């Protein structure tokens, strides 16, 4: 399994044709207490860069963009009851959705962990 990152602070785990998407530890820290996550509909087709999800903190709403294109096959139902999972476990239990990749070449646009860490350190 490989993990990729975007400049919008999403992580993408890729296993075969399936990608799991969430927001990074850095992002949850910046957003603060998360009170709601609006996930995409299962079956929806996302193109890279589309609005995919909305994450709401006490004060503000932030868009989460589709880091890669594909069909949404599963969303994290646990977030409905416990959106704070994104705070407590951003890069594991707080995942947002899974999709079937439609264009694996897009992964080359993303950063690996080392590059992302360097990106965050420069912010």
């Amino acid at each position, binding site marked *: 399994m490989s993990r990729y990152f975007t400049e919008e602070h999403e992580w993408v785990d890729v296993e075969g044709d399936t990608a799991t998407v969430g927001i990074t530890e850095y992002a949850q820290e*910046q957003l*603060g*207490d998360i*009170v*709601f996550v*609006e996930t995409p509909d299962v079956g929806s087709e996302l193109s890279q860069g589309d*609005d995919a999800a*909305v994450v*709401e*903190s*006490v*004060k*503000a*709403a932030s868009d989460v963009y589709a880091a890669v294109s594909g069909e949404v096959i599963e969303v994290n139902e646990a977030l*409905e009851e416990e*959106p704070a999972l994104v705070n407590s476990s951003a890069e594991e239990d707080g995942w947002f959705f899974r999709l079937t990749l439609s264009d694996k070449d897009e992964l080359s646009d993303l950063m690996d962990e080392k590059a992302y860490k360097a990106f965050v350190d420069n*912010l």
Partner: protein
Amino acid sequence: MSENTENLKQLPLGDWHRSLGARMVPFAGYEMPVQYEGVMAEHIWTRTEAGLFDVSHMGQVNLSGEGAAEALEAITPGNLSALGAGKIRYTLLLAQDGGILDDLMVTNTGRNLYLVVNGATKHDDIAYMRQQLPVSVTLDHLEDAALLALQGPKAGEALVKLDVQPLEAGWPVPADLHFMEAGPFLWNAIPLGISRSGYTGEDGFEISVPAEHAEALASALTDLEEVRPIGLGARDSLRLEAGLPLYGHDMDAGVLPVEANLNFALSKIRREEGKFAGAERVLAQYPDKSEIKRVGLFIDGRQPVREGADVVDDAGNSIGKVTSGGFSPTLQRPIAMAYVPRELSATGTAITVLQRKKQIACTVADMPFVPHNYHRKPKI
């Protein structure tokens, strides 16, 4: 995160906030603390203990000279000439057409009128007042004063732990102030102006302190076990729960007082006289004749609605706007303020908000959403 952070002014406590781990953001032209440990925790701390807020960005102004109160009444609808020494009034600064230029607190200090106005509007407010007030009234912008707000059910017992004494005989000690009363005090030979007021719905104080002593006072307060520093994020969620409007969001120059649901700021004697800026337009709507009205909303489900979302009718046409919205940490549900047509403003009315193409069901709610906990003077 790409906001321009250049040209931001620093407040007296900027370094103090940073040393406590605050995340600083641009606000009203200043770099200000939005949060320390987190909005939710800071909010709940203020509702149960006591929080210290740095609100030094707000404008502090003294008006002095013969007839200052009467002169200020020409551009506000408050009964200021009858305001006794040590008493505070909430009022509105009105444009000549009655539109709301700002909301403010006016205190009769016994020597002059002391005004606290919003940070984002203070320069415009001062320019307008200088233009409108007669030359016999002197306006001093107290730029060398910081302003701290100590808010929460334990604010009173916290302040008592500092040895704060009345500046002169005849004034109460801070603990004996009631809601909307103020006085001059001394702490370690430092002059303080203390008001029992605030913007959270809780009991508490606003303390004007010379900027060079602000850090000593802030540290003395946060050294107390019941006091923690609180950022602007929680200040906003607290005032929203308290049903208190935020200028520039929940009202502006395009809104009249009755539309903003601020009838209580139109004092009876001033309504009868009708001699204030825009009185004809303002009073034509009094008490319930405006077409729109600011109301509170409970939002169905867990997703907040935000400022700027449209209130829509059955056909999807915009009939109003959400002006503040967020998640209530106390109630653990989303709440909002919105302008709606008056016929839809009764408590319990079903309202639909359109946000990101999604219809969200809401219900008009009484405000405050969370009951006020003021230290009021007992009614005799």
